């Protein structure tokens, strides 16, 4: 048949921390029987076989452990403030104390909770919206698809952080819930776009037409035929969205938007910079929380190196040339 020539859609758009090209084979070749467990195991082992991803997984698990067992690990409570102010690192306060007399090390450990929590919740919610929008958008045809296209592109080009700041300013004194809300509001669109282009490519395959001929309805086709073929891309979207969420939360907290009394790495830096830690020379207070943010975001990006290999064999490790 005459192929209806589409204008070249730049599906391979690759924003910084979520490099995953939409096209390419859907699934790695599998062997053995088809239990979902088996599929998961194979996926996990593909990720694990990538050296970079392995480092990422270990790093992330360390942070998750830190967050869960914070009360056991931290020498003091996060809000305990009876210590001397602006102390340099010492035997009883390894990382020193803040201007309000809190133990820096304990705050760093408790701060992991916020980042891990925001990363997972906001990452999950963004991905959920991305999946629902991306799949239905990719499956339907007609004017509605154009409308969604316009909205998604709008959300994509509107700068996220300024929008979050403005919305946060209007909402005033919201806490972590508000931060998660604005992060999700601006964070779903990229994933939706990637998932949409993959949905479109799967939709064109014969097994979708075959399912229609077998009498399956649209919802069943989307969720039983298309969705399972996109697990790797969805995983990738999740880690990408979680990375953005962690960074966005830290940025907002650093600006003092949201509840500044919540101990997070971003708010630690907010207080540090407000109390002129720069001038008092407390470099550990500046260094530690930021490094933690960088490390947890790195771990998520590293895991995505392995996830990329799931959906695109060309990106698996190797010398290539």
């Amino acid at each position: 048949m005459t192929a209806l020539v589409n204008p070249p859609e730049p599906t391979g758009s690759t924003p910084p921390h979520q490099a995953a090209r939409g096209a390419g084979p859907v699934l790695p070749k599998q062997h053995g029987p088809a239990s979902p467990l088996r599929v998961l195991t194979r996926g996990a082992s593909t990720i694990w076989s990538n050296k970079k991803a392995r480092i990422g997984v270990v790093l992330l698990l360390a942070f998750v452990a830190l967050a869960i067992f914070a009360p056991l690990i931290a020498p003091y409570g996060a809000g305990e403030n009876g210590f001397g102010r602006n102390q340099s690192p010492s035997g009883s306060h390894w990382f020193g104390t803040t201007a309000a007399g809190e133990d820096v090390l304990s705050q760093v450990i408790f701060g992991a909770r916020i980042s891990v929590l925001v990363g997972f919740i906001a990452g999950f919610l963004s991905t959920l919206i991305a999946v629902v929008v991306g799949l239905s958008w990719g499956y339907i045809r007609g004017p509605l698809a154009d409308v969604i296209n316009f909205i998604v592109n709008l959300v994509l080009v509107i700068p996220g952080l300024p929008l979050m700041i403005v919305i946060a300013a209007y909402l005033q004194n919201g806490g972590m819930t508000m931060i998660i809300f604005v992060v999700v509001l601006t964070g779903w669109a990229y994933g939706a776009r990637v998932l949409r282009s993959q949905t479109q490519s799967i939709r064109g395959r014969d097994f979708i037409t075959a399912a229609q001929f077998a009498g399956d309805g649209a919802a069943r086709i989307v969720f039983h035929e298309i969705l399972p073929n996109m697990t790797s891309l969805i995983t990738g979207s999740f880690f990408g969205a979680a990375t953005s969420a962690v960074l966005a939360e830290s940025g907002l907290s650093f600006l003092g938007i949201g509840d500044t009394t919540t101990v997070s790495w971003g708010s630690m830096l907010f207080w540090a910079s407000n109390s002129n830690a720069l001038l008092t020379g407390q470099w550990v207070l500046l260094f530690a929380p930021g490094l933690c943010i960088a490390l947890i975001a790195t771990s998520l990006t590293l895991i995505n190196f392995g996830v990329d290999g799931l959906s695109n064999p060309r990106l698996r490790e190797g010398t290539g040339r």
Partner: protein
Amino acid sequence: MWYPLRKLGLLLLTAWAAITLNFLLPRLMPGTPADAAIAKLAQNGPVDPATRAAIEAQLGVPTGDVWSQYVQYLGNVSRLDFGVSYTFFPQSVSSLVLNALPWTLVMVGLVTIVAFVLGTLLGVLAAWKRGTWLDTLPTLGGTFTSAFPYFWTALLLVFFLGYTLKWFPTSGAYGLEATPNLSLAFIGDALGHAWLPAVTILVTSVGGWILGMRNNMINTLGDDYVTFAEANGLRTHTVAIKYAARNAILPNLTGFGLALGGVVGGSLLVEQVFNYPGVGYLLFNAVTNQDFPLMQALFLMITISILLANFLVDILYGLLDPRTRR
């Protein structure tokens, strides 16, 4: 329709949507920012009815005809009339924005272009030398630095290069005693002040371009035209640049358009750390002082600038890809 025209149409449509969003946002929010704003303004002196009406038009009041407000709002925007700032009363919002905009545009704009070009080149190199240290170093380094929060990089640079080593000034866009002019001395002074924020943005954003370009390039290296070019014995650099990289850059350009918002957002945080008098610094001031008119106008200007940048990227894309000319 002709490709640039189509893109221009899209630009106008998106700009309209952004302006409308700006109009709707305060009206969708709980509470009435207008009342808060008027109360805030009243601290500076009595509020005359004309100003009150203008604020209500901008920020919305619970009652009243939304349509006529919308029309009035569109008219104001078209005249770049965003009212008066509360924080810097009685300066007009537009004069504040126009004073701040050039600093951000020049500094962030230039650095972003440099970061994109540098990152793209490193990404090409990494993919071409895949598996060697030329790949591992920029890839892992880029992964790590792109995970840095912008403000943290800024704080570290201020601390080490500014306070400790005293190599660079740590605050503002020019010396305290200088006044903006076009003399060489002033430009030198401004450049000296721009160094640290520029390096911050460069370090933090370059990794993303490296990773993106590397992935695209790995993909194009597996494409048939690259194999065929090799089979034809083309020179190595021809295959790498004119075949593989030339095609890999297309999706990276689209990525550039999309990631621009993130870079600009990050640079706002950088301005905050350096007290750099650009739109980010101003926006932060507006937010802390609940200066809604200023905040709204800044958000709109930032969005429009990004839309324009995206439009230029689209045009460039059209020039680079013959397939858009059909």
